[in-house]
């Protein structure tokens, strides 16, 4: 495996197992940078990387920015609101601007699913999806995989539970693709109103009963629950949600002793997860943040090394 097949990283659905493993393996040496005195590698010197964020994000944007800077790329941040797009500044215009600026890598977050795919079709630059609508968030899933592999020593054969708002979650979708490609078994858990139709066809099992589902889980990935979903009538109250699907110490007593708890952040402590669990030895939430930088360094390196240009993502 020499590199990635596509110039872009748009999602895990179209990556092969080998490509995913290549990214994870490349991230291992990248992580060593955290232990160095001088956190600077020359890898991306002379390359321009644009962080194009149409949705607010602190973690993902900072993580990409740091990854780019530590590898000596020139990093530009563009924070646009999705509303300005609606007002007439089209993504097409932005694409032309970025091309004129000579961007080599564009990291994009957008509230519209497929927006990075739209961008990738029209630019020479490598496009990295930093989250598109409810579609995919490949770098988050890759850092989750990296964290699981580091803590558990493997992914093949593990039982992974993803709990929460699966319907609106790009993290869940990317995780399902990645985990199942690497041989893990995935169960999504939440109320039926937050489970998207026919998700079984992607390869996940569905359960509405968290206590039952976590009994055999090696990993529990806890998703953020947003109050606005309740206002849209998707579940009756936050109180009921927390009682059915909140992760707390009492509930975890039913899980395996060495269960690993992940959360993509930012967590609503006391809602989908208690602070006690988030800070316990079974949580890898802080490591996820650190690993995120390493995984993104690996991705920036691999896409700048170029997949084959103009090859379709599929």
């Amino acid at each position, binding site marked *: 495996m020499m590199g990635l097949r596509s110039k872009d990283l748009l999602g895990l659905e179209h990556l092969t197992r080998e490509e995913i493993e290549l990214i994870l393996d490349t991230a291992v040496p990248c992580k060593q940078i955290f232990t160095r005195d001088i956190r600077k590698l020359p890898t991306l010197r002379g390359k321009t990387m644009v962080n194009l964020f149409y949705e607010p994000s602190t973690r993902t944007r900072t993580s990409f920015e740091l990854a780019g800077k530590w590898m000596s790329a020139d990093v530009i941040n563009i924070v646009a609101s999705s509303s300005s*797009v609606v007002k007439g500044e089209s*993504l097409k215009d932005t694409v032309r601007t970025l091309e004129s600026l000579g961007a080599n890598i564009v990291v994009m977050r957008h509230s519209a699913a497929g*927006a990075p795919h*739209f961008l990738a079709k029209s630019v020479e630059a490598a496009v990295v999806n930093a989250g598109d609508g409810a*579609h995919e968030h490949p770098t988050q899933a890759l850092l989750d995989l990296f964290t699981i592999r580091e803590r558990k020593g493997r992914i093949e054969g593990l039982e992974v539970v993803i709990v929460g708002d699966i319907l609106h979650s790009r993290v869940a979708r990317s995780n399902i693709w990645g985990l199942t490609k690497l041989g893990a078994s995935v169960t999504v858990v939440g109320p039926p109103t937050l489970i*998207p*139709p*026919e998700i079984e066809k*992607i390869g996940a099992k569905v359960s509405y009963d968290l206590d039952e589902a976590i009994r055999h889980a090696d990993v529990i990935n806890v998703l953020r629950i947003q109050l606005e979903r309740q206002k849209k009538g998707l579940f009756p109250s936050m109180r009921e949600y927390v009682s059915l699907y909140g992760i707390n110490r009492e509930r975890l007593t039913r899980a395996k002793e060495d269960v690993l708890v992940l959360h993509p952040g930012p967590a609503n402590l006391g809602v989908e997860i208690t602070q006690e669990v988030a800070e316990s030895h079974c949580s890898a939430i802080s490591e996820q943040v650190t690993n995120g930088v390493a995984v993104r360094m690996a991705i920036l390196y691999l896409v700048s090394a170029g997949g084959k240009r103009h090859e379709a993502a599929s």
Partner: protein
Amino acid sequence: MKLLVKCAHVVDPINNIDDVRNIVIDGNRIESLETGEVSETLFDKVIDAAGLHAFPGLIDMHVHLREPGFEEKETIESGTRAAAAGGFTTVAAMPNTEPAIDNSAHVEYVRSRARHYGFCNVEVVGAITKRREGRELSEIGDLVQAGVVAISDDGNTVANSEIMRRAMEYLRMYDIPAIVHCEDESLSRDGVMNEGFNSTRLGLKGMPRLAEETIVARDVIMAEKLGARLHVAHVSTRGAVEIIRRAKERGARVTCEATPHHFSLTDDLIESYDANFKMNPPLRTHDDVLAILEGLRDGTIDAIASDHAPHTVEDKDVEFDYAPFGVIGLETTLTVSLTNLVSKNILPLPELIRKLSANPAKILGLTGRGHLSKGAIADVTLVDLNCERTIRSSEFESKARNTPFEGFRGVGVVRFVINSGRVVYDGQIVRA
């Protein structure tokens, strides 16, 4: 002006004709279909149609001409040019323009523009409610006086059942149908594609089949109880087809139409996030396509209509979520229907022509059209069924390019279109 169409293979389901005839046209009327020799010297113009099929002029009962209000997308002139190039001699223009066609003055505007600039006959559909807002009935009597052939708030459902009830009751005075766009918007709000596996996979907000089917059921029940004539536009789901099939079995005065994209394509195509596959109702699944094909075969679905919905390239070349709904179809409907229905033995040719001509004429009350009887309006579409074409939007007469059938290869090339006795298309548009 006397026109002879020589040696055409005439397919006229109303008159049960399916063989070679000479079509004699006098002025704007059909004079006769002759089986024997006809002396050419008696005619001002002769079209040698040997090897071509002749159909009663095709009728597309669901078209958005966009004028007035959205002339950048399409005009009556460009839309009717597209119709002629696609083999259509009559289109029914939907009223979701700006302003909406909700009074007689607006109807007259469209009709007069069509008379001056049109390349086909344009029938007008009036709005059910003022400004298509679903709150107050339009002056339906006034609309009928002005010549509308149906009423519809197409694009919207009349969500308020009381208003819909009153519209149907009011229609007892007139023999025109209510054409309904069936969508419970509280179920489909913010949706951009069919809800199902692909919406889950692509992370796009789904529009459930339920949104269509619950309103089809409501309107069918209401029409039955209230005695109104109902035409369900663009059915797209198995459930909708089944509701209408059962209503017809009970004798309800219900008709419906399907579009070529709904009987040909599935939501798998949205993988590319290409907004030329975004329309409302959305592309559904293979199972729904099979149900629509079955509905076409067993007669549940009466008509094929394009739901020609032009948009500019700028409108469509954006993120999938932000693109408007709608695809064009006037210049693709015939080829796609011949290829996917007749060549694949879903429908015999005369049955296809019935759904593209006789049935829409009947539904819209156009007695002089949809057949080639003596005295009928001389609308004739001449097609080479042995010739293949590849659909290329760059060659369209329409202003718009938003087709989901780009690159589609199929049979059927329109050679001549005669509209009220005048040749409007002979391989290209013929100006008067």
